């Protein structure tokens, strides 16, 4: 009956099916992996924000300690175990010294009171020390837990995070993120102020002015630069650029935000160039011809017709450049001086968010407050990068549609 139906589904080969399924599986796997990474990052930081799960983990950790005679608190995943409360206190007593690995204990105090505090806390199953919002609640237990805490004159976590000093290691760890935010903004701004104009100008040149032969060399060469290991760029800035700039400006700090910004701009330029060049080349050639036929010069055509026509793409290029500068780690560690100062001056060292995570995550105590704060910074980085990319995507689509289909 349907033998001659021209729209009948053709029977496909087994190989085709296999290929299709492979692609599907690989794609879903990679998407899954990305999600798992997100979940991991959020979960690690969540210990800071939620206090419920925290105490449950606490006793277990110490139980393990009793058996092994060494604290094993590196394992943040160990589940809660009931009935371990008493053991906990004993262990702490026996060792007669604070569990340095245990962030909770360290937080609370370094001597005798520790024992009492912990026991109370664990018994009641809710130490509110981590919760910055812990309000006054009826029940003397909380008050008891809070008492030694305030005795050490430690601010709440939120106050700590919004303070002006980043000094995560020490007796009184300070997790003020302002210096990091300022450092990030400062270096990103410098990187974009240098990188975006250079990248766009280079793209204009390559798209409209360069002879074809030169263009064929120029484009891949700059694109190769995008794949340049950032540690090499960082090293280059750390040695050559830093010395050169200090000779010229005679600045007090050899490594500073300006050097960092220059280093980051080296990473930003190829991205801005590549995407802006693609956007400019995608503008219909007829626009260029029409403009030239009206008696405009190449430059007038480039910046009055082609650049505005490619504006969404060029804007996207700059946004992605910002994203790169914002998230770049190695150059930021090597070339900025990496000191968390809250100064807006480009001549002082800076420390970026990414650099902080990059340089501190390796040595941080697992599960500690410091650890949580670093993950919190990571989430912030992720959200901003994600936001930038989303903005790019949405903005570009909207504007392109408006521009070439009329509105």
């Amino acid at each position: 009956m349907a033998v001659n139906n021209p729209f009948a589904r053709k029977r496909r080969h087994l190989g085709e099916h296999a290929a299709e399924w492979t692609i599907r599986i690989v794609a879903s796997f990679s998407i899954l992996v990305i999600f798992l990474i997100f979940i991991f990052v959020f979960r690690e930081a969540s210990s800071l924000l939620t206090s419920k799960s925290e105490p449950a983990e606490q006793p277990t950790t110490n139980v393990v300690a009793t058996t092994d005679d060494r604290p094993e608190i590196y394992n943040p995943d160990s589940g809660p175990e009931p009935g371990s409360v008493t053991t906990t206190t004993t262990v702490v007593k026996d060792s007669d010294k604070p569990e340095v690995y245990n962030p909770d204990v360290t937080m609370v105090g370094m001597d005798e009171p520790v024992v009492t505090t912990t026991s109370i806390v664990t018994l009641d199953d809710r130490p509110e020390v981590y919760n910055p919002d812990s309000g006054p609640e009826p029940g003397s237990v909380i008050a008891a837990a809070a008492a030694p805490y305030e005795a050490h004159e430690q601010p709440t976590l939120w106050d700590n995070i919004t303070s002006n000093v980043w000094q995560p290691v020490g007796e009184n760890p300070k997790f003020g993120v302002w210096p990091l935010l300022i450092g990030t903004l400062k270096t990103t701004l410098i990187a974009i102020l240098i990188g975006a104009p250079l990248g766009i100008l280079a793209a204009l040149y390559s798209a409209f002015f360069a002879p074809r032969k030169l263009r064929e060399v120029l484009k891949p060469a700059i694109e190769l630069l995008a794949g340049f290991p950032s540690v090499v760029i960082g090293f280059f800035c750390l040695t050559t650029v830093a010395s050169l700039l200090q000779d010229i400006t005679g600045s007090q700090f050899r490594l500073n935000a300006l050097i960092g910004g220059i280093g980051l701009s080296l990473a930003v330029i190829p991205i801005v160039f590549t995407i802006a060049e693609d956007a400019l080349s995608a503008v219909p050639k007829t626009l260029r011809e029409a403009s030239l036929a009206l008696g405009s010069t190449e430059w007038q055509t480039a910046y009055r017709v082609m650049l505005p026509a490619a504006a969404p793409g060029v804007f996207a290029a700059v946004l992605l450049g910002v994203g790169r500068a914002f998230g770049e780690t190695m150059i930021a560690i090597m070339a900025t001086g990496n000191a968390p100062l809250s100064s807006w001056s480009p001549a002082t060292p800076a420390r970026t968010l990414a650099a902080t995570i990059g340089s501190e995550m390796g040595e941080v105590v697992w599960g500690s407050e410091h650890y949580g704060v670093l993950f919190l910074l990571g989430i912030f980085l992720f959200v901003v990068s994600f936001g930038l990319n989303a903005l790019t995507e949405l903005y570009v689509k909207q504007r392109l549609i408006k521009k070439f289909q009329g509105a």
Partner: protein
Amino acid sequence: MAKELPVKIHTRDFSFFYSEKQALHGIGIDIYENRVTAFIGPSGCGKSTFLRSINRMNDLIDGTRVTGDMIVDGVNVYDKDVDVVTLRTRIGMVFQKSIPFPKSIYENITYGLTLNERPSKADLDNIVEGCLRRAALWDEVKDRLHHSAVGLSGGQQQRLCIARAVAVNPEILLMDEPCSALDPISTGKIEELITELKDQYTIVLVTHNMQQAARVSDYTGFFLMGRLIEFDRTRTIFTSPSIKETEDYITGRFG
């Protein structure tokens, strides 16, 4: 010819090369002032190449070169001391597939005017209105001058491109198949426009539509394989061509 008309464009033994490929062979032609001259011929015969040689748009293509003379108003436009930019302000061009600049209708018209000088707002307003009226577009767009030109219909866009070319006040208008992408009504409007414009401009029109050439042009040139086979008054070409290839093409025997 009864009366000697002033010659605007004159070529002598003009040849054109794309790298190795020769696209035009020894073209000699006189294009008269304030007349419409049409070029017809099968596609690939070099009509566009010839048109684009007049305002040197072919310079944009790498590796092209010319021999012979292309003389506009007594000056060889390929002379060393000729400024291409000035040349192009005097020779306007309308393309087959010219999309308006992604700007407002108003800015599309004023673009060419504001390249080198800054006319007053009042002057610009006047010129915009004048050009749009001349392109028979004013009534359709006068209420949305500051809206994007990309929203116009195809026929309106092409008339806008004509208005844009007219705005810089050229002496010659080159049109490369300006109606080939348009519907019959828009085509009719543009043909009307061409006849109206010819008292002010010398118009050179490339078309693959022989009826169009017959309707709007005063002179017609027939191109074949990069050669100008025959050039004469349009009436003569269409009623009693003197060369057999022309007759074959016109009567539809090939092409």
